[in-house]
């Protein structure tokens, strides 16, 4: 049976509903991973009404595949508009898969300082973990074959949608 393409906008609302009881409007800081996670973080920031502006994480410097694949093209700088030391941070990403990106994201965060707490929020968990990483907030789970790619897209009008492709 073919996999259903998840509705990204709906999932953002579901994720926000999960997070709302747990967040501190003044203290919680969202940090989105380039690029999909950044869009989701911005959507969540609006839905939750958080005070601190969302940060942006470039995980390229901590990826574990540099020796195989070199430096990524189109790198952006990380930008954290808040003090990392002692912060309550929620890392936001679109799809959780092997867990390697999240591991790199945490390494990058610790280069800035020592947070008090880090949690993870994702729109979709597609299984296939290769590291002991788990999401604290997850809007949807599904299973995909290794050859399948699930990517978040950002339309000109700002709406988010998922694209499912074969490699």
């Amino acid at each position, binding site marked *: 049976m073919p996999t259903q393409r998840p509705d990204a906008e709906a999932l953002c609302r579901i994720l926000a509903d999960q997070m709302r009881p747990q967040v501190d409007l003044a203290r919680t800081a969202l940090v989105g991973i380039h690029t999909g996670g950044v869009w989701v973080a911005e959507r969540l920031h609006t839905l939750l009404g958080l005070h601190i502006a969302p940060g942006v994480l470039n995980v390229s410097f901590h990826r574990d595949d540099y020796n195989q*694949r*070199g430096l990524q093209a189109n790198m952006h700088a990380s*930008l954290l508009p808040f003090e990392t030391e002692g912060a309550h941070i929620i890392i936001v990403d679109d799809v959780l898969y092997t867990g390697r990106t999240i591991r790199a994201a945490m390494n990058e965060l610790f*280069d800035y300082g020592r947070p008090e707490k880090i949690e993870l929020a994702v729109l979709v968990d597609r299984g296939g973990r290769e590291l002991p990483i788990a999401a604290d907030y997850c809007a949807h789970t599904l299973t995909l074959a290794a050859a399948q790619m699930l990517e978040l897209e950002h339309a000109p009008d700002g709406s988010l949608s998922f694209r499912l492709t074969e490699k």
Partner: protein
Amino acid sequence: MTLLRINRNPQLNSHGELTHLLSTEGLPQDVLTRILDTAAPFAAVAEREVKKVPLLRGKSVFNLFFENSTRTRTTFEIAAKRLSADVINLNINTSSASKGETLLDTTDNLAAMQADMFVVRHAASGAPYLIAQHLAATGKDHIHIINAGDGRHAHPTQGLLDMYTIRHYKQDFTQLTVAIVGDVLHSRVARSQIHALTTLGVPEVRVIAPKTLLPSGIERLGVQVFNDMKEGLRGVDVVMMLRLQNERMQGALLPSAQEYFKSYGLTMDKLALAKPDAIVMHPGPMNRGVEIESAVADGTQAVILPQVTFGIAVRMAVMAMLAGA
């Protein structure tokens, strides 16, 4: 009819990827732009608590300086260490070369020590090319070379950090008039700047110098020559000063530092002829009162210290791009 050019461009590997950085000349615009784009996130690294990333962890970077330079060597060392690389500094003039060891023998010895990258500065134009060709010929082309200055030929990382600086302050290369002032004849920095500027689309690149400090055929590089500094600075967006070495006054090229300063030194008066928001750059170290007056060097239009900061980011970017190729 030119006969076969025996050597192919040694900066690129067989996949067309940058494998060495030897000169800004011959690098296509998209490669230059990519280096500048890659440098931006590395610049941010310097702002954080932990000024290190693990990209080059376990890799060995050998600084081979056949020509002395504490400044340049230090910036490369800092850049390599911020990438978590192991750095070994070799001042060759105090060791084996002075005992008669050839350049290539020195190269072979160091390659045998499992080096991953050589940063090379040498007094002879072309020396890094010889090393690159030799490494390719001896099956050691996994070792990447960065030219930290070869004779009068090139100083590509300086050229690149200068481009990064210009882009930081002026954004669009295609609207600029840039002037390079000083001893172009002896300057590898000037040559690297000229190639990068023209490749990035700067419509007017000027060189300003007395005739004794200009190489014949310099126009072939795509620049406009000015012997009159006042004329040359009119309406300019970027003023790039070059260092004048003391030795130039010894030979028959210039009579004295005082006379040079009078005609070719950058003073507040002369700077006023450029655009009001023109920036002043200098690769350092500066000879105050010879090529530049303190009021300018310490003034609001000078971006000389930011150049140094950007230089570390650019070098980190180059090392990370090469090591990952």
